[in-house]
Structures are given as C-alpha cells and as structure tokens.
C-alpha cells in the first residue's frame, strides 16, 4: 500500500474517531445512564494512533524520498541532509498542520489519563467535548484544504526542490517549531476547561486548580519556542537581529502576553476568589490568539518572512476563529453576571493590586501589538492606502509598558496580600534599591549612555534584586527546596525575563553595523575590534555549494561567514558567522563575493552587546518553569472551592 493511501487512511481514521468521540461524549453528557469511560478512552486512543501513524507515514515517505506523495515532491529532496529531511515535516503548511494535530492528540491523551477517575464529572466531560471539537477541526483540515497526503506522479529521475534553503541551514530549525507548537497547542487544555467551567457553571477555582500545571507548562514551551525562534533568526538571517516586530513574530507574542497575564491573575482568584470572568476571558483570548496566529501565518494576508506559502486554508481557520469567539463571548454573556465574585481589593498597594496592574499592562501590551499588526489592513479597508507599521512604532509604544512591568517585577513580589505598610516595603526593598543604584553606576562607568538603556538596566537591577532576595530567603528557610514550587520557580523565571529585557535594551541601544569592502589581507576596524579578511574557499556539499570567507577577529580565531547556493531552488542565502562572548557579539555576513580571488569581498558586520544573555535568559526561564511545575513543600494548596451555581445564588 502506498504511503499516500496509508496516510489518507490514517487521517480518515482520525476524523472518524474525533467525530465519534464528539458524539459519544455528548451522549454521555446528556444521558447519564451509561458509563462511556471505556469507549471514550478507546476513541481517544484511536485518534492519537491515527495522528501518530500519519506522522510516521509522512516521515517514512520523506526518508525514503517517496515522491508519489505530493508533499514530499514539493518539499523534499534526495540531497537534503538527514536531520533537515526529518524536519521537512514542519517546513511547509500541510506538514505543520499534521505536527500540530499530533501534538494536540497527545494532549488529549494526557487529559484522559490524568482525569481517568473523574470521567463522570461533567467538568471533565465538557472539557473533553471541547477538545474533540478542536481535534475534529484539525483532522478535517487535513481531509480538505491542507491535505498532506495528496498524490503526485513523478517522472523517472524526478527530484524535489527540498525545503526552503533558509529552513535547512541551522540545527535550531529542528527544535523551534515543535517546541513552539507544544506551547500553542498546550493552551487548548486550559481553554477546554474554561469553556467547561462556563457551561457547567462551576466557575469557582476548581478548573483553575485542575489546569494550573498545564497552563504553566504550555507557557514555558511557548516562551522557549519564541526564544528559540529569535535565536534561529539571529543565527540564520544574517542581519544581526533577532526580533523585528514582524506579523508572524507578533502572532506568537500575542498569546504569550495574554498567557502571561493569566498565570499572574490566576493567583488572585486562587487566593481571593476574585477576577473570575477576567481569568476565563484571558484563557479564551490566549487560545483564540493562537488560532488567529495560525491564520496570520498561513493565510498570506500580511507580509512576513516567516509566513507559509499562501493557501486556501485561510477561510477555514478564520471560520473556526469566529466560532471560538462567538461561543466564548456568548457563554460569558450568559454566565458572566453569575460568575462575578463579591470580593474586592482593599488597597491598590497590595499583592493583588500589583497583579491587577500587571494585567492592565499586559492587556495594554497585547492591544498595542495587535493594533500595530493589523492596522495596515484596517487603513487599507477604510482608505485604500497601503501603509506599514514597524519597529519605530512598536519600540516607542511598548517601551513605557516594558519599564512599568520591570518596576512591578521589583515591587510586586515583596508586597503582602491585602495591604502593605510603608515600613515593611522600605525594609524589603532597600537591598534591591542599592543593587539597582550599583547597576546604574556600573553601567555608566563602563561607558553606557542614554536615559532609556540606563533606566532599563536600573529597573532590571531593582527587579533582579527583589527576585534574588525572595530566592535567598526561601533557600535559607528550606534549603534546595526553596528553588522549587510555583512562587520560587516564578522568581527564577523573573530573573530569566530580566536578563532578556536588559539584553534587549542593551543590544537595541548600542547596536553597531557597518559594511566593508575588503581585499585579502586587509583589516577593518570597528568599535575596537579588528576584522581581517584572509581569503575565501569553495566547498561543495550534496545539496549546495558554499563559498566561505575567512575572517580573523582581533588576531585570534577565524570565523567563516558564507554564501550558500542551492542549485535546485535557484537560491543563494547568507550563512552568517557569529563570535559570541558574554560582553558582545560580532555577527559577520558576506553580502557579495567578487569574481576573482584577489578582489574585495563586501562584508557586513554587526556588533551588539549582551546578545548571549538573551539565550541564557531563555534557558533560565525554561529551568524556572520546570521548577515552578515541580511540587514544592509549601503549605498544601487550598482545597478546590468549586461549587455548583445553585449554592452560589
């Protein structure tokens, strides 16, 4: 049996299992007599099997270069190296939907396993129902507009073009998309439970407690995925940048912003029972924004270097997005007034007040990013003009929000719940304040100038001091256990975020870029670094030809930026080379090679400080997230206070 028909059969099985699952769950919810636990488990198993089988078949087709599968003919090639050939699964639209679906079914399996003893609970039932709706949608996509198993009739000796050259020159390509998808897809689970809470009316803290770890894990993967994407851009695109406020980057950042708001405001609800509607709305918004993100990435309505090839999938995703929004808004309108809790925040200067401020800031941040991203479409629709909104807008609008968030990161962790007294605050913050002053003085001494980066460093120091203080106190009290648990893990995450914020501010403020024409033996000087061009060599690979320039930096090691030509795709790409140290990075890329060996090469060099701390920050966040989902030894979490609405009213 051919790979195409095997794959199509797997997709068909997936569709059948999801729809049957949908019906069975609906029956068990409306008719309580039967116990459908077994059947549901079987159906979820069949669905996951179908998705895994489809991925295995696709990988088999890719590895055996089976060009009768259209996807392989369009994106595969006999010359692609093994790792990137494997990663071709997510190098184009149809395969990426396949990967998405497989991860999604994995999460559904995890939900069924985790809640195996609560199958009779309508809360779990409705969550499963929602999950089945989502899986049905994605399997249906693969039946119709994003069919990965379309057939192709290759002529003898046919070879495919291989994936886009930019997607096969860095090992991060193998990790960035799957990690990002783990984050995107992971938010489906809290979304399903939020919808379930709205439907069942069990709007207390039960659904939050049930999905707390899932949310934090999804958030961690999303963060790591975004950082890996930035790293990939930096290492492969050759312009010395890592974040460009590109529509697709923004599309991944939007759910991150609302998700981050949620994992903070959730604590207010757990502790004080407030902000219930707001929290439900944030979860719904986060999930909707992941779907909106896939629409932006896959419909081609906005220009982006990361977008997939334009396809007919757009209207389908948009319809699904509309469905999610309509159902969620309808449910909130229906339940919203009953959900509202009678509590209130006693003082704005308290932990819950700080969380509220945090949420206002994150919401404003998300609003600015969303507005800037879609604004050109709006102007075009209203006025017919084409305009662009780019980094000057985003930098200017998000900078004050970023500063405010850094300040809150310093103050909020030391604020007590309910109400703070000036004495306590003064005592807790004096250490971080001195640390902040020291950071500013140090920055000025090493030559940093300009109010914006210095303010960012100072606030970063303030926030880092406060986080470190919490961790030191916790480890003093509990030993190594002072590093695990949500609060302590959260402080580690904060330190990672601060590292990224400081590195972002520094690299943006002090970036130096210049272009040099160098003949062999010639040296250029830039920001105190010497770049010597020592000649070039040509290296032939199975799928490409690379011309490599040898650049010696500061008389030390030689770095080798190159231009790779992929004959089949008829495309040349830059392969930059980066010298990283803890202090600064030198990114080299060759803009053009001369004909003769002795002629001048056009070299672009970008020098930025503290770049490496962006990636270290990402790793610290990942570690902190892992610590945060590890149960700590602090007091047992309060029992779920979820109660049916009848008792509330």
């Amino acid at each position, binding site marked *: 049996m051919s790979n195409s028909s095997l794959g199509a059969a797997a997709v068909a099985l997936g569709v059948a299992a999801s729809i049957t699952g949908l019906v069975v769950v609906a029956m068990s919810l409306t008719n309580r007599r039967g116990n459908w636990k077994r059947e549901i488990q079987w159906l979820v198993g069949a669905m996951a099997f179908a998705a895994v089988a489809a991925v295995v078949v696709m990988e088999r087709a890719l590895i055996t270069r089976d060009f009768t599968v259209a996807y392989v003919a369009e994106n595969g090639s006999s010359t692609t190296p093994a790792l990137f050939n494997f990663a071709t699964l997510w190098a184009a639209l149809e395969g990426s939907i396949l990967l998405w679906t497989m991860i999604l079914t994995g999460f559904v399996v995890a939900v069924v396993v985790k809640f195996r003893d609560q199958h009779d609970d309508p809360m779990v039932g409705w969550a499963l129902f929602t999950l089945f709706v989502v899986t049905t949608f994605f399997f249906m996509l693969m039946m119709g507009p994003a069919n990965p198993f379309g057939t192709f009739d290759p002529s003898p000796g046919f070879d495919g073009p291989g994936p886009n050259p930019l997607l096969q020159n860095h090992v991060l390509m193998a990790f960035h998309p799957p990690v990002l998808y783990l984050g995107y897809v992971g938010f489906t689970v809290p979304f399903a439970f939020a919808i379930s809470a709205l439907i069942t009316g069990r709007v207390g803290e039960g659904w939050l407690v049930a999905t707390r770890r899932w949310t934090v894990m999804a958030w961690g993967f999303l963060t790591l995925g975004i950082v890996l994407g930035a790293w990939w851009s930096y290492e492969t695109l*050759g*312009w010395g*940048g890592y974040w*460009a406020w*590109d529509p697709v980057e923004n599309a991944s950042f939007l759910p991150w912003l609302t998700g981050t708001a949620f994992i903070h405001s959730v604590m207010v609800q757990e502790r004080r029972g407030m902000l219930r509607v707001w929290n439900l709305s944030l979860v719904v918004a986060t999930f909707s924004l992941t779907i909106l993100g896939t629409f932006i990435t896959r419909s081609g309505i*906005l*220009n*982006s*270097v*990361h*977008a997939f090839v334009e396809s007919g999938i757009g209207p389908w995703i948009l319809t699904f997005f509309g469905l999610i929004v309509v159902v969620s808004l309808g449910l909130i309108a229906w339940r919203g007034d009953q959900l509202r809790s009678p509590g*209130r*925040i*006693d003082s*704005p200067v308290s932990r819950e007040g700080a969380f*509220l401020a945090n949420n*206002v800031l994150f919401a*404003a941040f998300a*609003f600015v990013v969303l*507005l*800037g991203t879609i*604004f*050109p479409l709006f*102007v075009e629709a209203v006025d017919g*003009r*084409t*305009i*662009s*909104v*780019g*980094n*000057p*807008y985003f930098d200017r*609008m998000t900078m004050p929000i970023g500063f405010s968030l850094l300040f809150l990161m310093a103050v909020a962790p030391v604020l007590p719940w309910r109400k703070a007294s000036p*004495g306590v605050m*003064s*005592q807790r913050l*004096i250490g971080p*304040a*001195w640390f*902040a*002053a020291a950071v*500013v*003085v140090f*920055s*000025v001494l090493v*030559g940093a*100038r*300009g*109010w914006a980066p*210095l*303010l960012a460093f*100072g606030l970063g120091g303030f926030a880092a001091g406060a986080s470190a203080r919490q961790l030191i106190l916790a480890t003093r009290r509990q030993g190594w256990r002072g590093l695990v648990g949500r609060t302590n893990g959260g402080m580690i995450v904060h330190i990672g975020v601060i590292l990224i914020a400081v590195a972002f501010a520094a690299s943006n403020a002090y970036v*130096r*870029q*210049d*272009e040099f024409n160098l003949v062999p033996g010639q040296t250029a000087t830039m920001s105190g670094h010497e770049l010597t061009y020592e000649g070039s060599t040509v290296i032939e690979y199975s799928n490409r030809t690379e011309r490599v320039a040898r650049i010696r930096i500061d008389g030390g090691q030689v770095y080798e930026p190159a231009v790779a030509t992929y004959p089949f795709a008829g495309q040349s790409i*830059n392969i930059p080379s980066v010298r990283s140290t803890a202090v600064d990075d030198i990114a080299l*890329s060759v*803009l053009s090679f001369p004909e003769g060996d002795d002629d001048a090469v056009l070299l672009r060099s970008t020098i930025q400080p503290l770049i490496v701390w962006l990636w270290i920050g990402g790793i610290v966040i990942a570690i902190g997230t892992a610590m945060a989902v590890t149960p700590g030894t602090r007091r047992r979490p309060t029992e779920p206070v979820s109660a049916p609405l009848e008792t509330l009213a």
Partner: protein
Amino acid sequence: MLRLRSSSRSDARLWSWIGAAVIGVSALLYGSLASGEPRTNAERAHSLANQFACPVCDGQSVAQSDVSVARIIRREIRTWVDEGRTTDYIRSQLVADFGEDIDYTPSASGITSLVWILPVVAGAGAVTGLFFVFRRWKLEADLEPTEEDVALVESARADRS
C-alpha cells in the same frame, strides 16, 4: 530604649534610601546628559535603514534585507547622511520615491493617527475605570462614619452657615 533604637533604625533606613536614590539618580542623569561618543554616520544610517521597509521583502526592513533594492536604498541613505541631510528630508524622499508603505512609522495625521491615539485612549480608560472601581470599593468599605468624620462634617456645616 527599645523605641529609641527602632526609630534610629528607621532613620538609618531613610538615609539609606536617600543615599541609594541620590547615587542612582545622579548616575542616571550623568549617563543621560553626558555626551558619549558622537554618533557616526554609519550608526545613523543603520538606525535610519531600520525605520524603512524593504519594498520587495516580506516584513524585513531595509537594514535587514540583503536583496538589491535594500542595498541600493542603504547606500542612498548613507549618501544622504554623509551629505548632512535631516531625517525628515530622507523620510520624505523615500516616501515620495517608493510610496507611503516604505515608512515603518505611521504618520500622526489623518486616519493613521488612530494607531497612536487608540492605545493611549484605551490605557487612560482602563486607569480611570480602575480608579472608580477602587473608589467605590473604598466607599463600600467605610460606610459607617467615625466620630471624626461626623465632627468634620459638623464643622464644615458650621463654616457654611
């Protein structure tokens, strides 16, 4: 004795705060006002190139892209910078030559000004809303007037009459 010590401790902390603030703020002011190395033409050209969209690229700026037109515009910006042209001149030239969508900074007039105004309006609205919510909570919290409140109201009434 105990009282004295605690007050001297809080005095010390106050001085400590003042010290940290003075040192931090003066370093910040010095770093903001002292002129660092002057911006070279290369730096200015690079920062400008980042503010314009490459006309044929997918979401990359002139500074980022390696296609021909981006290189040509980069060189042209550099020429203008070397000639000592102002940012406004360079902006209007590029917009005239390549169209409005080359400019990454939406203009602050006409319909595009909404992109600048809306976030500010929304932010102000959120802060005002929260202010009223907190005030209502506060009012709900203190429904019973204290004796001081009563006295204050009485004296105010006495003043008016």
